[in-house]
């Protein structure tokens, strides 16, 4: 009897423990698929990216300096602060960004805790990109004030600059454009998105060889574009809709293949959003009046809607998770959450 009693007691303990573990696992799983609080911020994050366990974005408050922000473990760190931060790129433990302080532009890189200025001067610089051990950016020189030199040949000129440790900065390419953002670098080609300041936003995407400066126009759009380079090497960008009669209010996603042919990947997206990359998957978020995200297929398929939980809107899509804003937030104190992409 004492042995049987002991066995019953032990069995009960094991059963209760197993039930507790199971319940805990189920509860944990439930919590992981729901929004997890990340951090509070006072301004809407822009150019959101997720790298490993970190979130990065740019904050551009109206009456304060712009900030490049990194969030790690729920702690927000201001990596850089300037009058303007044009863009940034990440590569493992390194980050690089371009910024303007008191009319002076600079390109900076952080490795570990060490921040170094790679270049500074009066020329405007756009979004940079890492390319192996180099940092590449587009640099725009303007001799004349706006309107004074309306001819493209004597107007602003944009060059591609490349920094590599231990070597002088190398400048190649000469685009007759008023600004340039490096979309990415692949196979010795730098892809540059340019917009034209005077006369509206026609945007042109170039393929520039940082080696010899040869430039080739890949695509042109009548609106501002957001472009990304996928790990497959495919260049993708947003453009006014090809299907809708209201081209200005509806966005499509176009791409250029290795054969140089431009095609429409998807259409009928709300205007004003950004492309996000997760592995080889492509998402679109932040469209005007739209609180969701969209999965972008191929071959002119309709986009698939990804709706956030009730009470949340999608701020951006990272490599694994979505960044959400709670609608219960106030304008000056936005509560940001993350949840896995479904």
């Amino acid at each position, binding site marked *: 009897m004492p042995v049987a009693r002991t066995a019953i007691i032990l069995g009960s303990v094991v059963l209760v423990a197993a039930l507790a573990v199971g319940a805990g696992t189920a509860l944990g799983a439930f919590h992981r698929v729901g929004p997890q609080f990340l951090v509070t911020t006072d301004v809407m994050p822009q150019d959101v990216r997720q790298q490993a366990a970190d979130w990065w974005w740019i904050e551009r408050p109206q009456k304060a300096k712009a900030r490049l922000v990194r969030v790690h473990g729920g702690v927000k760190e201001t990596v850089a602060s300037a009058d303007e931060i044009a863009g940034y790129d990440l590569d493992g433990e390194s980050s690089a960004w371009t910024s303007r302080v008191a009319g002076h532009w600079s390109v900076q890189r952080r490795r570990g805790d060490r921040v170094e200025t790679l270049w500074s001067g009066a020329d405007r610089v756009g979004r940079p990109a890492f390319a192996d051990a180099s940092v590449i950016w587009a640099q725009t020189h303007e001799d*004349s*004030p706006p*309107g*004074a*030199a*309306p*001819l*493209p*040949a*004597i107007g602003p000129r944009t060059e591609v600059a490349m920094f590599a440790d231990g070597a002088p900065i190398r400048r190649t390419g*000469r685009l*007759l454009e008023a600004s340039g953002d490096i979309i990415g670098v692949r196979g010795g080609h730098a892809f540059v998105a340019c917009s*034209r300041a*005077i*006369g*509206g936003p*026609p945007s*042109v995407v170039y393929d520039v060889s940082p080696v010899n400066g*040869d430039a080739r*126009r890949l695509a*042109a*759009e*009548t609106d501002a574009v957001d472009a990304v380079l996928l790990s497959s090497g495919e260049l993708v960008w947003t453009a006014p809709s090809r299907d809708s009669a209201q081209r200005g209010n509806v966005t499509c996603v176009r791409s250029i293949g290795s054969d140089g042919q431009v095609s429409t990947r998807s259409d009928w997206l709300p205007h004003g959003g950004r492309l996000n990359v997760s592995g080889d998957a492509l998402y679109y978020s932040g469209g005007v009046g739209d609180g969701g995200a969209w999965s972008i297929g191929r071959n002119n398929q309709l986009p698939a809607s990804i709706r956030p939980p009730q009470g949340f809107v999608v701020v951006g899509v990272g490599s694994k998770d979505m960044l959400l804003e709670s609608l219960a937030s106030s304008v000056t104190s936005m509560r940001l959450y993350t949840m896995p992409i479904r």
Partner: protein
Amino acid sequence: MKSAIKQDSVHPMRVRKAASNNVHPGVAAAVIILVIAIVQYVWWMKLVHKEMIRPGGGQSGGRGGPSTPVALGIKSVSVDTLAGTLEPGDADGPGYSARFDGPSAVALDSGGNVVVADTRNHRIRVVSPTGRTATIAGSTPGYRDGPTGQALFDSPSGVAVGPDGTIYAADTNNHRIRSIRGGVVSTIAGGEQGFNDGPAATARFDHPTALSLNVSNPRSPVLVVADSGNRRLRAISLIGPNPMVSTLYQSAAVPTGVSVTAGAVAAACPGAGEVVAGTRVLKNLSIQSGDGDGQIPNGALTTKHPDAVCGIGQRWFFADAGHGALLELTKDGARVIAGNCNGAGPMLGFRDGNGERSHFGVITGIATDGKRQLYIADCTNNAIRRITLPTPGAQEKPDPDRFSEF
């Protein structure tokens, strides 16, 4: 009232109360409404005044109220698009299917074809009178003389056509003046960036932009060059096998447009806001409505960045990059021929129609058939536009202040 007067000497406070008790409620309401109306009228007048006169002399008022743009072009002028569309590209073909990228200048040949300096495409193109676009020469940026299929240009920004069909091009970023004759591209003047007058082979230019050919004396044609980097108008005498280059005019500002008509020369300097016509330097010209219906107070709206000029007989037309409009020089200033222009800022757009309803981007080149048609290099719209002027009327009398000839 009687009782109130009686009480006046006894107790003033009671008098006031009694008096107010005697005011008819309707009268009080009318007085209140009147006061509110007066306050509102004064406030409204101040608001209108503040909106009408903007800093810098601009004006936004007009027939439709303070926020309604004023249409200043001429209704009887028509504007259409001959070739190209907003989207930049480099395709040949008919009408809207053709693509340009930053067309900076146009010139007309004797057959009515429009020759185009397609700057960002580094090509010289031609648009037929029916609107079909073809490439004459150029491909990737570079410098190479030879057959048109192999020749290279770097950002050509000016073109002119001689009576014999020779095309002249200002090859801006090669700092050279090129010619295209009989399917062959040649360099007629220039070399490395710099300044030098003299024989064409040793002459130097710095970012030459616009060209205009003076054939008023057919035996001694002169090619006039807006040499923007040297801030000069240069003249290339095309007599004989060895052209000579000389300086025609030195400016404090950068010239980007030049035109010669019947021996008179005009230039546009957008950075300084100047139109140079002969010996006259015209700046901050007062802009008036093209139809002359007096919508703008004199001097309230002025030219900003004139950047291209063209003459027809006694008339000078110019484009203003600051307004996105085509204007005509008048004795007292300038009047809007086509394009919308309200002074609140450039009203850049892309719309055909009449002169009042049409919109342009930044116009950088103008050419004419010498009669009623003007051809426009609409640079930011990547299109070649055509403006048809109304049949000449009584107002087009010779100007006694005709600009001096050279």
